[in-house]
Structure formats: C-alpha cells, structure tokens
C-alpha cells in the first residue's frame, strides 16, 4: 500500500513536466496569436480569430481525443499518400503536451493581446524613433512591460492548465491521476489515493500561486497605485 504512494508521488514529476512543457508551447502559440491579431493584416487577423474562437468553444478532452486518436491516423494516411513506408505513433506525452499547449495558446492569445494593448503607444513609438527594429522593440520594450499586464490572466490560465493535465490520464499517460486510478483498482481503496492526488495538485497550484505573486510584485515595482 505504502509503495503506491511513492509511485503516485513519482508520477507527479510527469505532471510537472507535462504542464511546464505545455506552458512553453502555449506561450509560443499565444505570442504568435497575439502578434497575428495585432498585425493588422486581414488574413492573419482572421486566422488568429478563428483559432482563438474555435479552440475556446470545444472541450479540452474532445480536442485531446481528436489529436491523439485522429492525429495518428491522419498523419499516417498522409504519409501513405505521399508514398512513404514510415508510420508515426504519437505517444500520449507528446499528444498531451501539444494539445494542452495548443488549447491554452488560444487563451494566452487573448491575454497577451490585451497586455500589449495596455502598453502606452508612446513607448513603442519612442523605440522606433531610436531606430530599433520591430524585433528589438518587442524584446527590449514591449516584452518587459507586458509581463505586468499579462500576469493576472497568465496566472489564471496556468492554474487551469495544471488542472487540465489530469485529462492526459484519459489518453493513457501514466501521470498522477492515472497512477492513482491504477492504485485504487489494485488495492480497492480509491478514496485515500484520490485524496492524496488531489492534495498533490493543491500543493502544486498553491506553490504556483505564491511564486507568481512574487513575480507580480517584482514586475510591478515602481508602478503608482491610486490610494482609496
């Protein structure tokens, strides 16, 4: 019985891994989406709007099943049509990371777009006046300032993303939730194992919240707050 707790605890490393990698993917998708939405080019704006609207209208679980089961068949059919002999197997880890990243990228798109719009326009104009390129402006001026505006939305998205990693157990990745279910089936004491897993998730979300509060304080240095 005791060893199962260790197994679940070990599985939590996988949960952390999936969530952090998915976060990375989602931030990349989010930045690309926000850039496309603010680019002013009709095609890019349309594509990004389609992405953020459709993804946010479909349950995570359905998208995950679609990518995991449908994606494998889709890629293999494509390879076959191209005349290749190779077959590709998407493993649950990759499918989980990519799907969660892709889904939360849609939420990040909206968060980042709002954050970029909150930065006074004069800041970017000043950077261009200094002769910085668009890329330099983004790295040196926009990015450090948008962190502060993006953090509240980012924190929300991150907490929801952590909880979404539990869904990866349904496509067979052996993370905490999956292992807890296995342990329950083996020992017939599901209550204790699901409580334990829930507690681990609670610790993970609480620690994240505390860390992000620190980050928020760091990036809000020097901002004036109105006194009520």
């Amino acid at each position: 019985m005791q060893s199962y707790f260790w197994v679940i605890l070990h599985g939590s490393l996988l949960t952390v891994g999936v969530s952090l990698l998915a976060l990375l993917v989602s931030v990349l998708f989010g930045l690309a989406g926000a850039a496309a939405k603010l680019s002013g080019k009709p095609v890019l704006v349309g594509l990004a709007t389609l992405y953020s609207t459709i993804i946010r209208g479909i349950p995570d679980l359905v998208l995950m099943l679609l990518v995991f089961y449908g994606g494998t068949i889709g890629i293999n059919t494509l390879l076959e049509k191209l005349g290749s002999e190779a077959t590709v197997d998407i493993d649950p880890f990759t499918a989980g990371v990519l799907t969660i990243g892709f889904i939360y990228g849609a939420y990040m798109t909206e968060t980042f777009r709002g954050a970029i719009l909150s930065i006074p326009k004069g800041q970017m104009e000043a950077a261009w006046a200094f002769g910085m390129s668009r890329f330099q402006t983004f790295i040196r001026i926009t990015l450090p300032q948008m962190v502060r505006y993006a953090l509240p939305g980012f924190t929300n998205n991150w907490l929801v993303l952590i909880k979404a990693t539990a869904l990866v157990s349904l496509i067979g990745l052996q993370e905490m939730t999956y292992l807890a279910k296995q342990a329950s089936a083996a020992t017939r004491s599901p209550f204790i194992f699901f409580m334990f897993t829930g507690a681990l998730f609670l610790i993970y979300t609480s620690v994240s919240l505390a860390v992000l509060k620190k980050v928020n304080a760091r990036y809000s240095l020097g901002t004036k707050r109105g006194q009520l």
Partner: protein
Amino acid sequence: MEWAVIFAPDNLALFGNGILITLWLLFASLAVGGVLALIFALMLTGPWAPLRWLVGAYTFVIRGTPLLIQVYLIYYGLGQLEWIQARWDAIWPWTYFKEPFFCALLAFSLNTAGYTAEMLAGAIRETSAGEIEAAHAYGMSRFQTMWRVVLPSAMRRTLPAYSNEVVMMLHATSLASAVPNMLDVTSAASRIYATYYLPFEAYLAAAAIYLTASFCLIGFFRFSEGRLLAYLAPRKH
C-alpha cells in the same frame, strides 16, 4: 473521411441522446450549483468568521484540484467508505451513490458552486456603499437590504463572469465520459470511434456539437447582459 457513418440513423440517435444528457447534466448542475453558490456567497460575505473560513477552505480546495479528481473521488472514492457501503444498498438517499449520473451531477454541482460562490461574493463586496447606505436610510433590515438591493444588483454584475463559467461547465460535462455507463456527447463519440475506428469523424462531430452549444450559450448571455446590465452601459445619446 466517411461522414455517412455519423449520419446513419443509429449513430445520429446516439448523438441526439448524448446532447440531451449533456444539456440535462449542464442545466441540472448549474441549478443545484447556483443555489449552493448563493448560500456560500452569503456565508463568505457574512458576519460569522468560522463560516467564512470554512467556505473559503471549500472554494480553495475545489478551485485548486482538477474536476476529474473530484469526479473520481465521488464515483470511485466514496464507495470505499464503510459508512456509505453500509447504506448504499438499501437506505434511500445513499442508493444514489451507485448511479454514475448522480455522481457526475454531484461532482459538477459542487465544482461550479465553488467557482460561482467566489464570483458572487466578489460582486456582493463590490456593491457601492451608497446603495447600501440608501437602503439603511429607508429603514430596511440587514435581510431586506440583501434581498432587495444588494443581491439583485450583484447577481446582474456577476453575469459576464458567470457566462464564462457556464461555457466552462458545458465543456466540463465532457468529463462525464470518464465515468462508466454515461452516454453524453463525448461518450457517444468514443463509442462510435470504438465501433467503426473513425476517430476524426466521431470527435469532429462531437466538437461541432459543443461549438454550436457554446455559441448559443454565449449569444444568450450577450442578449441577457444587454437587457439586465443596460443601466450600467455607457450612455448612447
């Protein structure tokens, strides 16, 4: 792509039944969760510290753990407790804990209650002091002030955040498929996938159904916001 399979009468019926179950789960859990949320929000903003602390701990746990764990805990977990085991064969309310539908509904209701309570409590706290002062000036009691002045306005102001929660709950009902013997939209898609080995068609059909439902809900909330929050909108003339 073999869309004909999806449109075969049997499978259409499976999806149709799935839509009914999904919507029934959604509205039932919103109704139960809504009543609970109202009670919790009143406790959160009320004068008794132990109640505030208790409900605060509840929303912290509910909002900090995945819904899937909560569903498993209720469906698989409670059956482990001897106290429940002794009752769920015969004694009336406890017999429900053997039914997957009831367990899913209970988990969803408790979950949405936690999120909604915090939103509503936030709106109650944000009620402008002048409105409450005016109510007191009219000689209304605490209860009357709450019932006649604070709650009607707080519930309206929660509407924009609540519409997000409703769409989230619609998506959350797909987790019902993690419980055996449920036949909601996602389970229907999984069954068609398992029978015909057509994952794209099955899950895309499910995605289209959820997307349509999401847009309908969003449209409905836009309309109600336009009506119920008209007094907060910027002046048009």
